[in-house]
């Protein structure tokens, strides 16, 4: 075990998986010479060569589209999108091809693409470096989505994504890239997709969250005198319905937290799941604490946009 930051754990996973499987390659903008604008791909080009850690032209559809072709040639491409909001030019490839191509071949070809990107707000950056685009991805059939909140999970989920035979998108919470530190298993470490993590056991209310909202929920729980069970989803598709429903059955109260805008944010899916399968367990309304349905603001007021421990805590209080 080594103590690493979250972004160091991402780098560790990439080194480990490229060393383990010669078919794994990394491509994206500035991933090679610079080792990534967050250093997530540092050292890969020197160690594995410029053909397995490729600085591409500045064109996201070209990057993801080439990755589809690379799969046809037997590669397992790991694509970096430099930032959340800069992945949007690749959405046409994602929706029309990445999520559909295997189906199109009658299941006879595999497209084990991993798309990883830093996501989320609170980093005091210029416009469009703050989005939480998970809805665009998880709504797209054929795509799996994972979001770690700890260094160990950042390594394990990325390894699982790279080894997964289906396309997987891994959103890395850039807000805690360097502040989230923790023990990370050395060598191969895989956290299976579809298993939520009970970040904190509790009895009175269930807080459903992921990524950078996990520490926010923990801070809220610390400030509350009711017992909060914090479920870190880790994976949005496949979704660990059992862990969610078990917790809700126990507590009867739910607050869902995410940064993304509220309307059809992933919280809506969680609320719908509960409204369908746990309706008679509920002792109160299913509440959401989310980003607003407005453009992500300039950073002087971003703290008012981001769900805060205070907003989460007051939502919880309103349930009692």
């Amino acid at each position, binding site marked *: 075990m080594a103590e690493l930051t979250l972004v160091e754990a991402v780098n560790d996973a990439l080194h480990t998986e490229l060393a383990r499987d010669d078919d794994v390659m990394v491509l994206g903008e500035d991933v090679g010479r610079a080792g990534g604008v967050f250093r997530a791909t540092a050292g890969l080009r020197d160690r594995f060569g410029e053909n397995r850690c490729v600085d591409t032209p500045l064109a996201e559809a070209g990057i993801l589209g*080439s990755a*589809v*072709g690379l799969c046809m040639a037997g590669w397992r491409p790991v694509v970096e999108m430099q930032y959340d909001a800069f992945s949007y030019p690749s959405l046409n490839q994602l929706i029309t091809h990445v999520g559909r191509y295997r189906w199109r071949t009658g299941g006879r070809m595999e497209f084990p693409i991993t798309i990883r990107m830093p996501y989320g707000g609170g980093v005091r950056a210029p416009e469009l470096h703050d989005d939480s685009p998970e809805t665009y991805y998880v709504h797209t059939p054929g795509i*799996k989505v994972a979001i770690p909140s700890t260094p160990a999970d950042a390594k394990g989920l990325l390894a699982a994504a790279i080894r997964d035979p289906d396309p997987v998108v891994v959103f890395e919470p850039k807000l805690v890239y360097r502040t989230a530190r923790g023990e990370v298993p050395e060598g191969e470490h895989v956290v299976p997709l*579809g298993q939520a993590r009970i970040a904190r056991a509790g009895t009175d209310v269930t807080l459903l969250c992921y990524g950078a909202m996990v520490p926010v929920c923990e801070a809220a729980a610390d400030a509350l005198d009711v017992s909060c069970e914090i479920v870190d989803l880790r994976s949005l598709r496949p979704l660990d319905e059992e862990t969610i429903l078990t917790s809700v059955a126990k507590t009867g109260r739910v607050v869902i937290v995410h940064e993304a805008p509220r309307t059809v944010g992933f919280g809506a899916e969680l609320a719908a799941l509960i409204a369908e399968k746990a309706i008679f367990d509920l002792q109160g309304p299913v509440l959401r604490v989310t980003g607003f349905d407005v453009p992500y603001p300039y950073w002087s007021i971003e703290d008012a946009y981001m769900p805060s421990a205070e907003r989460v805590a007051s939502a919880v209080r309103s349930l009692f």
Partner: protein
Amino acid sequence: MATAHPELAPGLTDADLLELYRRMVLLRTYDERSVVYHRQGRIGTYAIFWNHEAIQAGATFALGDDDWIFPSYRESAIGLVRGMPAETILQWWRGQPSGWWNPADWNVASIAVPIASHLPHATGLAWGKKLKGEDAVAMAFFGDGATSEGEFHEGVNFAAVLGAPVVFVCNNNQWAISTPLSAQTRAQSLADKASGYGIPGVTVDGLDVLAVHAAAHEAVERARSGGGPTLIECVHYRAAPHATADDPRAYIDLERVEQERANECVGRFERLLKDAGVLTDELAAEVKQACEDVMRAGIAAAESEPPADPELLFTHAYVDPPGNMRHG
């Protein structure tokens, strides 16, 4: 291999010329029968490629079996040149499962419906094969309208930068449904776009199968020998509706269409081969007959398939499906 008619096509034997002719007739027959099948309600909406046969047969004749073809809907039947059964393609147009072939079986990618979106795939495949030390070339087909799309630009530029062995074949039929070439570009020729990528670009007569083949042959050789991609513009004029649902009379130049039909590419090649003594009326009739048999057998095979199992909704979406996949 020696050629009996170097004046026609250096490097092609009479057998090659006849095979090229056979492929054109096969494509033509597929297309003409499909329009009839559509009218009879035996296939769905269909994108007609009448008079595009010289481009499709000519360009692909320059490929080896390990090379990959990336078709758009306009080249839906291009697998025929690789021996793909007609029923497979008919089933695609009938919305039937067996129409969704395994690209690896034929080295023919799935039919790309979103315009220009398959160009980056061709680039990625060619680049990926090159990185693995395999010497496969990828050939991507697309139209004049496709050159306006960002993914055309990104796909070609990636290929150029990566030195990927790709041949980009632009079917410039001068229409994108009802939109004329003049509304797509102000360039003198679409081949002019090549210089912006630092790659060779050539323009050929899209109705002259030997000219298309010669250009493709040169491009394939260049790609295979590490020279990177080439853009080939094959110019003609769409002489049929965009698809069975389209009525071009509202926008197209009907006189020009008449001229094009009079000069259609299969008959043109047929006359050439007959004048050169390579093809006889008897042989032509045999070829035509054989192609019609292929289609008759193809539609029969397609129609004899049992109805698709709705379970197929779920079978192929994921290798390892999420638990809630069937929950709708």
